[in-house]
């Protein structure tokens, strides 16, 4: 049997959803036999590969790099899962949307800084004006809310997908779970 090609990544998030993924614990071994992890913060690959079966995306779209990555992921994955509240609602990262971007930058890099820092311009991707959820930019196939989604829910999601079923996730997690 061909192993399912799985990719995971985080954009504007805290990596908590990936922690929850790892919390699946020993059942990860069970999953590992059926999958090939082709891209993830947990493996070494640098470039997002082609022909991915399932992409789990944590985090919202907050900067230009997030958006570029997301568009590539969408192009090269059969199923895209918005994993967790930041991906689904933009959640905490979007709390800056109530303020102007310049205000946010000034506040973080100068007003509250202990030393004379400057606004970062090089080597970091520019922030976008507003933080938005994944489905504001690309088609999302499945939404698993939660901050983070319980590992039980992530396990259910993956096992159902691997069994060739599109799971009903409504009772498995909720916003803020």
């Amino acid at each position: 049997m061909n192993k399912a090609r799985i990719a995971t990544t985080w954009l504007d998030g805290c990596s908590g959803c990936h922690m929850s993924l790892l919390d699946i614990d020993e059942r990860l071994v069970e999953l590992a036999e059926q999958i090939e992890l082709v891209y993830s913060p947990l493996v070494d690959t640098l470039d997002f590969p082609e022909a991915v079966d399932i992409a789990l995306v944590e985090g919202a779209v907050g900067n230009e790099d997030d958006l570029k990555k997301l568009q590539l992921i969408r192009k090269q994955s059969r199923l895209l899962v918005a994993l967790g509240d930041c991906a689904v609602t933009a959640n905490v990262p979007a709390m800056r949307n109530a303020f102007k971007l310049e205000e946010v930058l000034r506040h973080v890099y100068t007003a509250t800084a202990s030393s004379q820092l400057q606004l970062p311009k090089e080597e970091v991707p520019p922030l976008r004006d507003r933080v938005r959820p994944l489905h504001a930019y690309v088609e999302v196939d499945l939404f698993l809310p939660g901050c983070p989604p319980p590992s039980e829910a992530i396990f259910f999601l993956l096992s159902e997908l691997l069994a060739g079923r599109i799971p009903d996730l409504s009772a498995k997690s909720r916003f803020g779970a």
Partner: protein
Amino acid sequence: MNHSPASRNSQENTPPPRILTLQIDGQDLSGRADETILEIARQNKIHIPTLCRLDGLSGHGGCRLCLVEISGQNRPVPACLTYPQEGMVISTASQRLQDYRRKILELLFSERNHVCAVCVSNGHCELQELAVELGLSHVRYEYLHPRLEVDGSHARFIRDPNRCVLCLRCVRVCAEVEGAHTWDVMGRGISSRVITDLNQAWGSSQSCTACGKCVQVCPTGALSEKGTSVAEMIKHRHFLPQLLAMRTNRRE
């Protein structure tokens, strides 16, 4: 604002209420003419989602989650404010109603900043529970992210308009049960806000008795007790039926 539902039958020598027959979701039922479609549905274990409705307070009809369809009428009506008529045929869960209800929830979520993960009411919130109940996996509308100030001026309570759904339970419980009428509504449509006294800091309100009834009936984290952190605000609503029952007994 309507008068309290408790007063509907309180006059003496009123004739016994008329009993009507009607149909809800294919079930033949009977119900009193002075009870709303929502009440009759509940007595028959037919669940209709609600948000602004709270037993013991007057009907408001603001949230529209309880919309039902009546045969022969094109426009859905709120079950919490509509009284039955003889032979009415009502449906509570059509595809159209479920779509409307989900859209209403999506609009509520997108209109303010309901960041469940960092909310005092996380896990004890009626808005959050409705999202689960109605299978809302994501919000299709653009989030508005309005900039709203939290009011921490009161000695015991906090008002966070970011989480307010304009159910007006606070307004009603304060006016109808506490009798203080500290709360009211300002503005229209999307710019409506609940305010204390003449739109001043809650802590400076002269009419507020600090009874906390508004906090307990608020369905979300919009009103909370000071000192509660994420997910710690658990509301206690049992005071309301108890208090109202005690008052009715005294009157009799």
